[in-house]
């Protein structure tokens, strides 16, 4: 073999090795703090779930644990794979990172607390357990996360545009109310996919269940909340309109309500 060819070969293999190493890294789900989320159910996961989660979510993940009875909102029934807080499109399963995030930050305005009393490893270990409760994870894969475009500035014009979308184009007020108090004309009759009554979110409280940043709010109405009447508005708006709607929705927060 001529040296030059050899060199070529070597460099080819180097490149392949580097890219595949990089690939492996980007495929293995890694959260902000480099926590590895296991792909299989582990003993640690089972123990953690049984001890900390099953009292509410039930031994088999049906949301029917012993303390769940009088609770509203109900603890999530994991058997359908319907997760509210995702970065993936309407109806899609969540990514592992989406679940990890909810477990770590909790769900404000419900009994689901931020589970930061558990170690990162424990939180990661319950994720395969939650997924094992639903056959949906066997027959489907999560779609790719939706694209969140570059944020625009919340100018007055943008807010006015957002108001127009909220009140006229997409009629969010029918559920969420003109002032965003969750008291629109269709609000009273809403129920979730499990047959329990559900209230459209009251924006004035500012305690968004899926997180308080503009990006979180943007994602909520772009992806919808699976298992609830809250639809995805993925096809209706341009990226800029989305940011304007986000700012308008966040402008409905009433500081005096957030202190309650």
């Amino acid at each position, binding site marked *: 073999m001529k040296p030059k060819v050899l060199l070529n070969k070597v460099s080819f293999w180097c490149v392949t090795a580097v*890219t595949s190493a*990089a*690939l492996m890294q*980007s*495929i293995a789900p890694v959260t902000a703090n480099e926590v590895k989320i296991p792909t299989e159910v582990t003993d640690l996961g089972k123990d953690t779930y049984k001890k900390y989660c099953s009292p509410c979510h039930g031994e088999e993940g049906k949301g029917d644990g012993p303390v769940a009875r009088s609770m509203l909102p109900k603890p999530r029934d994991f058997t*359908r*794979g*319907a997760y509210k807080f995702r970065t993936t499109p*309407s*109806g*899609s399963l969540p990514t592992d990172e989406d679940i990890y995030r909810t477990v770590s930050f909790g769900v404000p305005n419900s009994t689901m607390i931020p589970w930061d009393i558990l170690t990162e490893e424990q939180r990661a270990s319950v994720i395969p357990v939650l997924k094992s409760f639903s*056959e*949906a994870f066997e*027959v*489907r*894969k999560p779609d*790719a996360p939706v694209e969140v475009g570059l944020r625009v500035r919340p100018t007055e014009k943008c807010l006015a545009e957002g108001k127009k979308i909220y009140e006229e*184009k*997409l*009629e969010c007020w*029918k*559920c969420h109310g003109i002032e965003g108090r969750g008291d629109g004309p*269709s609000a009273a*009759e*809403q129920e979730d*996919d499990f047959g329990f009554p559900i209230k459209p979110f009251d924006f004035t409280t500012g305690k968004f269940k899926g997180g308080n940043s503009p990006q979180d709010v943007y994602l909520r109405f772009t992806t*919808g909340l*699976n298992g*609830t*009447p*809250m*639809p*995805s*508005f*993925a*096809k*209706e708006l341009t990226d800029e309109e989305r940011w304007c709607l986000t700012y308008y929705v966040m402008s409905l927060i009433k500081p005096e309500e957030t202190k309650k």
Partner: protein
Amino acid sequence: MKLIYVLSVLFAFLCCNLISSKDILADSKYSETEVPDGGTIIGNVKYMGELAAVGLNLYRDWELSDTSKTTSEKLICSKVNSGLKNAVVSLKDITQGKKKIIPAIHPIIDQQNNYFIPHVIAIVSGTTVDFLNGDEQMHNIHTRSTRNQPFNFGTTYKQRISKKFDYPEIIKITCDLHKNAYAWIVVLDHPYFDATDRNGYFEICDIPPGTYTFQVWHEELGTLEKEVTVHPKETTTIEFVYSQN
């Protein structure tokens, strides 16, 4: 960095593809063959029970003559012959037969005057359905399927949402803003089915000769079954009767 991202997405995509195509193969028991001497079944689905109180009239604004006895969307039954509309007749457990033709022109479910039209459609797996909003106001289209990926989209006037249904399943579609509006999509993994017309008639053709269980499904009245022998190149007439229970 971007390249790695693109590559990994591509890789993930390929993996998903492999997995899901395996799934489909494992799932479908139906295979296509030539059916040179197929027989035809025609028939009628009837409802003999007492009818519910007169409800809404879907054709009110349309100046079409209305021949149904009841006018609730749940149970539409002809005055003339008690024929039941919106029932789906299909062959159960058929494993071999004519080609599955996936319609190139997508069947449509439209939202008009706050109702879904049509109320029931039957499709073969792999068919894409287009959901339209024909009203000058907001609607949403919300499904709760498990095998087929569910969805819930808000739609404005003239919006069109296309969704493909890959697995056999009976799927209910609702609009959360108009609680009495809903529709059904019946997905089957073979082409031997028909939805009854407004006089309860159906027709299924090119069935390989043999004895089969025929099944009829109706959203309110449940299912009925019947064993029927299909003869080569002959037309056999059958009848399903839902009596009052």
